[in-house]
């Protein structure tokens, strides 16, 4: 494990983003990815290790207009137990229920899961199909600058995002869905718990009189980043979920993904699972 030269624990957002100005900073939140990655040598801790856990602006789940904001420091357990999330985004709770183990969920944060940018990140798939956006803060001059971007454009590669070194992810924003909104998540692994996805699938949209619209489909662990599946979405948009459509869409999904072989599965199996699970999920939607 590499050792940082400085340790800093800011107590306000201003202090935190000011510290990021010089760029050579490793950010610590829950530490559930940072610790094993730094110990295995996959990640080098920079000059300064900044513990952001005392920054109040990064916490809390609040309803702001027609959006819900989830602070970056919110733990997976807090998300699962939150009334607003349970009411509006049950799909996120479902994904969190498959996230690692109880112990890890108690400390791992949503912001950390996003910034770790694993292609198999468990919360990323539901966030993508919910059209979440990422809030970022920085201090280019003397004052705080905030902006946000759609999560679907945030990921660049495994562990790589469009966050610049002097920016801090402060939270995510998700619009409260309208009536007839449906959203589902499925994670496939070897074990029911404590597992990295072999593949994961999120499907969301508006289901009215058997017709699916505003379709969002996202796949995990089949590309260098979690991805939206545009061809699968197109094939589903405005369709009635009958057996023929479901079969056709599952085939398009399988052809759309370009996974790799790794220790968890081969590309062939991943494509098969994208097909079979997409089909299973759509059948469940149709039957519900």
């Amino acid at each position, binding site marked *: 494990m590499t050792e940082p030269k400085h340790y800093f624990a800011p107590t306000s957002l201003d202090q935190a983003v000011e510290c990021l100005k010089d760029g050579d900073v490793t950010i610590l939140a829950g530490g559930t990815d940072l610790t*094993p990655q730094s110990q*295995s040598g996959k990640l080098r801790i920079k000059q300064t290790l900044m513990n952001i856990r005392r920054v109040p602006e990064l916490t809390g789940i609040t309803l702001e207009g027609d959006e819900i904001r989830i602070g970056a420091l919110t733990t997976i357990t807090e998300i699962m137990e939150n009334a607003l999330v349970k009411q509006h985004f049950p799909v996120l709770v479902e994904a969190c229920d498959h996230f690692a183990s109880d112990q890890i969920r108690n400390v791992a944060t949503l912001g950390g899961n996003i910034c770790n940018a694993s292609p198999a990140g468990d919360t990323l798939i539901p966030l993508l199909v919910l059209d979440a956006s990422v809030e970022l803060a920085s201090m280019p001059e003397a004052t705080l600058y905030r902006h946000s971007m759609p999560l679907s454009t945030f990921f660049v590669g495994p562990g790589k995002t469009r966050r610049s070194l002097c920016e801090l992810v402060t939270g995510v924003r998700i619009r409260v869905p309208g009536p007839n909104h449906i959203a589902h998540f499925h994670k*496939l692994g*070897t*074990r*029911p*718990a*404590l*597992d*990295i996805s*072999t593949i994961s699938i999120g499907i969301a949209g508006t289901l009215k009189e058997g017709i699916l619209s505003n379709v969002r489909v996202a796949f995990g662990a089949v590309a260098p980043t979690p991805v939206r599946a545009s061809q699968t979405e197109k094939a589903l948009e405005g369709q009635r979920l009958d057996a023929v459509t479901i079969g056709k869409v599952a085939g398009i999904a399988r052809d759309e993904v370009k996974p790799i072989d790794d*220790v*968890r*599965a*081969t590309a*062939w*199996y991943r494509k*098969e*699972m994208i097909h*079979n*699970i997409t089909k*299973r999920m759509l059948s469940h939607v149709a039957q519900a």
Partner: protein
Amino acid sequence: MSVAEKKPRVIEPDSLIGKRIPKMDAPEKASGRTRYIHDINLSGQLYGRILRSARIHALIKSIDTSAARALPGVHVVITAADIPDQRPIGVARDHFPLKVGRVRSQRDEIAAVAAESEEIAEAALKLIRVVYEDLPVISDPEEAIKPGAALIHPEPHGADGTHLHLKQGTSIAHKGKPDNIAMTFDYVHGDVIQGEAESDVVIEDTFRLHYVTHCCMGVSGMIAEFDASGNLLMYSNTQVPFLHKREFAEYLNMDPARIRIIQPPIGGGFGSKLDIYPFEVICLYLARAAKRPVKMLFTREEEFLASPTRQPVLLTLRSGCKKDGTLTFRQVHTLHDNGAYTSWGATTPFVMMQTFSSLYRVPHCDYHTAAVYTNNPYAGSFRGYGNLQATFAIEQHMDMLAERIGMDSLAFRLKNAQDSGETTGQGMVFKSCGFKDCINTAAQRSDYTRKFKENEVNRSRPGNIRRGIGMASMLHVGGGAKIYPSDGCGTILKMDDFANVTLITGASEIGQGSETVLSQLVCEELGLPISAITVVNNDTAITPWDVGVHASRTTFIAGNSAIGAAKKAKTKILAVAAKKYECAESDLDLRGGFVIKASSGEVVVELSKLLRNLHFQDKAELVMTTFYYEPPSVHQDKGFKGDVSAAYAWGAQVVEVEVDTDTGRVRMTKVTGAHDVGRVLNRLGIEGQIEGGVVMGQGYALTEELLIENGVMKNPNFRDYKLVTAPEIPEMDISFIESMDGEGPQGAKGVGEAPAICVAAATANAICNATGVRMFELPFTPEKVYRALHGQTPKLYWKPWRADQ
């Protein structure tokens, strides 16, 4: 003067045998107070770390340790060049602790550092520069055994290329080998050609068994200290302190009498601590050079990389039977991937051939193994010792043969199952044998026959979930195994003035619960509560000799030894009491802490009072006894025949699964087991032993696999090496068949390994029952099962390695 009539106190008979007795170490462990080796620190202690190879197979051209030596806080840096008296280690003496001139696997030890902190030691390792010259990597045993294959241990040649022809007697580490064959085993009884001629049905299949490792919760470690006189004290997690003491003495070229091994509480063994590994000898070198105590602990990654594995096996089995269901023959060829060096894994054929020759009546059996050197991790001993692998093949063939002759698979097993009193072709004598009871009990309690038929019918129904049920049986040594000159265990027993007992036993506790069972046996004999005993079992300077924790032997061997010592104590006590109270010894007994009248239970005298009287009289005496138990087993002859164990354990397990045909995921829903354990001693302990073994077997069957690619371990961590987690553990229904073994302590037999053996085989049969698809390769991960269900698995076939067969 009138004396009030005082009713004599009567002690009712009671027994500790079969009761649910919590493990004696449980309160300490559950409350986090147990001091493992990790918690022990000696004053002046340094921290040792090992530099392992950056290559899989390479020549070491140079090692530069100068920068590491110069780092402040570093006391000692050693390489092979610094230890001129290195001796070859391992079962075949085929490697040096610090590698000389060549590395042959990812784990290979190149240099070691002792420093004032782990961080400094780690930093020093990074400063060591090694120049390698790569050699071709041989990771496939089928390639390694071919004539002309590149050699892992080539014979040394002089600078001019001429063969040095070192004289016989020097070890493989010195003189090399002309081929890659580490060991071979050939066994035969009967005549398989005749057996095949008599067969109505013959089948042949190849099975592939994979790499798994023990995953002990406590990582490996040791502390070594030489005192001012040069005596060595080791804090070690070994399972075999007495044999290892002798072996360490050989490696250090010192008198074994000057070595003392203390075993702190051990965080799991399962066979992994049955051999001496390079890190242990290196730790001794560091302590010797530094003249300070040196502590060495593995990281979890290191534990994966540098621990032994279960033996991977490629196995081709040919079996036959008659139409009436009589087994005719078995012919077995196995290719064992030995890895770069030889540890106990290479000797698993000792156990495997027993299963092939003697689980069921087989008139003709022919067994051959070659263990072949490769650049892969090397395999050691692991709970079951080859029996999981052998049983995986045999028990699938039992189902397949039954199907071919149209016989019910349960009836087929029962027709060929042995009874007590039989002697097998390999010379094993089944004095107590509850095999048929095991099969019948497991089948009845699981409703095997009805479910088996129903599941076959349900295969064609719609839906993606298929249910399956499968059975497997096993035979394993249950009364020790006579491998070494002695298979015995010694006991020293002393009683104090308060009738408390100290049991000093050679048998090591590695978490299996032996100290509790041994205490029960002693207290049962002496009529004392379990609270009256203290066990000392972890110091070679105090405890008498024992051959070690292996072969499911401790309850049986150490148990009989403890009973022997307790009986001698009891005889002495009763003789003293009989004399004092002027009656026959046979009129007296011990019960509840008293000497009583055997006929009525009436109290004669409090035992502690009697002991004090004995001690503080003119001819003062103490009650202290010793006993050494040697089981009545025999060594095998050169053809591997002989009654190697004093008793044999039997078992049958039925596994139920749900297979998701959309994903290939197999969910194990229930395991029904019936085990012939001789007799239940500690019901709580044996339940834990069986349940733990089943879960270990479940991991072997479904999730665990060390992925090795070209000699590189791809998943040395718990994220990608998947142990079974709590929600996956199936419902279990375990029955104990009490066959009351005549030689066993209170009738008991050893069962430490038994519960892990059947699970994978029974799971394979269950998956076939569910889907109609037979799986020949472990583990049954979702992808592997899905591929098989979709015809994407080419039929495995390995042509036996002997050209003449």
